[in-house]
Every structure is written in C-alpha cells, then in structure tokens.
C-alpha cells in the first residue's frame, strides 16, 4: 500500500527516511504512537487466554535496562581499584 499507511516492520530499509517523513511527530502523534505500541505489546503478550510470567518478566527486564541506562553516566565513574 502507500508508504504512510505501512507499519515500521513492513517498510524496506531504503524507504526508511521517506517513511519517517510521513510520520506525525506532534505531541498527540507521539502519544498516539506510544499508546499503539503499548496496546500491541499488551495484546500480544499479556492479554492472552493462558498467559504466564513471560509477558510481565519482559516488561520488568526492560524496566531494569531502562534504569541502568538512566544511571549509566553516574555508575560508569566508579573505579574499582579505589575500594581495594
């Protein structure tokens, strides 16, 4: 279909800049994008008939990774030699 209607997974690598140009980057657009991403994750991994710990564990692992990257500048300044 037309470039602006396709989702990210269906866009070929060469078409990526053109596709990015068609995206809506206003606050409402970004919020809508976040909402869409969350509901697609939720419906694929959590909102299933016989779910298990996997859906939530991925979310928690992602949260740990996010916290790590948020902390990185601070943590990277430890020198181990100073404590020995």
């Amino acid at each position, binding site marked *: 279909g037309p470039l602006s209607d396709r989702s990210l997974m269906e866009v070929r690598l060469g078409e990526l800049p053109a596709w990015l140009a068609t995206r809506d980057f206003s606050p409402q657009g970004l919020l809508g994008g976040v909402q869409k991403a969350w509901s697609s994750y939720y419906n694929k991994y*959590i909102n299933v008939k016989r*779910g298990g710990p996997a859906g939530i564990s991925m979310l928690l692992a992602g949260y740990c990774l996010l*916290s790590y990257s*948020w902390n990185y500048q601070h943590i990277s300044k430890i020198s181990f030699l100073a*404590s020995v």
Partner: protein
Amino acid sequence: MNLSFFDQFTSPYLLGIPLILVSTMFPALLLPSTDNRWLPNRLCTLQLWLSHLITKQLMVPLNKKGHKWALILTSLMTLLLMINLLGLLPYTFTPTTQLSMNMALAFPLWFATLLTGLRNQPSTSLGHLLPEGTPTPLIPALIMIETTSLLIRPLALGVRLTANLTAGHLLIQLISTATITLLPLIPTVSLLTTLILLLLTILEVAVAMIQAYVFVLLLTLYLQENI
C-alpha cells in the same frame, strides 16, 4: 571517583528528566485496567484477587461512612506495594526512600482524618486525647502526652517507611560490597556473606510488603478513631 554508599538514593537525571518520575509512574503499566469482560486475562484476575484481599482487610473494621475511603486507601496500598517491590530489582530506583515523597503521602492523609474527626464529631475526637480510667492527678500530663503523640503521627508514618526501605537498600549494598571485596581474598567467608545476602534479600521482600501494609493500616486506624 569512588561512589559513596548514599549515592544510590540520589535520583539520576537523563536529558533533564529524573528517574524518580519514571519509577513512580511505572507501576501503572503493571496494573492494566480491565476491559468490559468478566475474566480478561490472568494478570487481571491476579490483580482483582489482590485488590479484593486488600480492600476487605482494610475496610472490615471501618463503619459505613469510612467505606468512602476505600478507593484511596486501596490504591495507596497497591502503589506502595508496587514501588517497594520494584525497587528490589537491580539498578532500579525506589521513590519511597525519599523522605519528601513519604511525607507528601503521610501528612495530607493524616490531616484529612484529623479534620474529618474534628468536623463531624469534635468532642469524641478530642476525647481520644484522654484514655479511660486515668487517675485524676495524671490528667494534665496525659493530655499533653497524648497531644504530642497525635501530632507526631504523620512524622512517624513518613519516617518509618523511609527509614525501613533506606536501611534495607543500604544493607544490601554494604553486604554485596563485602562479598565482592572478599572474593579474591578469602572465598569461604565470601560464600558465607553470599548466604547472608540471600537471606537479607528475602527479608527485604517481606519488609517491602509489610511496610506498605503498615502505612495504610495505621491510616485506617486513625480513620477509625475519627469517623
């Protein structure tokens, strides 16, 4: 540059956004709202069971008027439980280690219970300042003691939560530093310290849940006296 042990309690900034903001809003993702279905998914079932348990436990001692507080108390309990437990994951930040946040939760809620009591039944609320059966000469001293105990309640609520969680996190950090430092020197003692660390982590999980419960339970107790 060496890291001091209290550095884990400073909220790190990235692009000007403090991590405490993300940490406070993250539990909302883990508690999805139910659709218009009776049994949406297993996560919602678990969440419903937990919120029923919490609400029943907190609301049974209260009278009918107190049941208006059910929503705020249950959601407060769920928030504190989630925040405390999420803080035990590696690299995460626990907002309830900040005294400012806990006082912001404790003081308005305690003050609301006090004002409810003073507005609706002022003599009964003031009557709580004097326990029954006190000998007459002790009355003035006891009134002052009870007033102090009343006024110190919000401070106690806030500081209790902060101190418990901060102490737990600090202990975990200290013992893990000891384990890592001892590993090349005396591996046996390092193994013992790892055992202590394991037990401490189990304790911290329990403390996280208990402290959230105690916070909200005390608020219901203060509400019982005043409503």
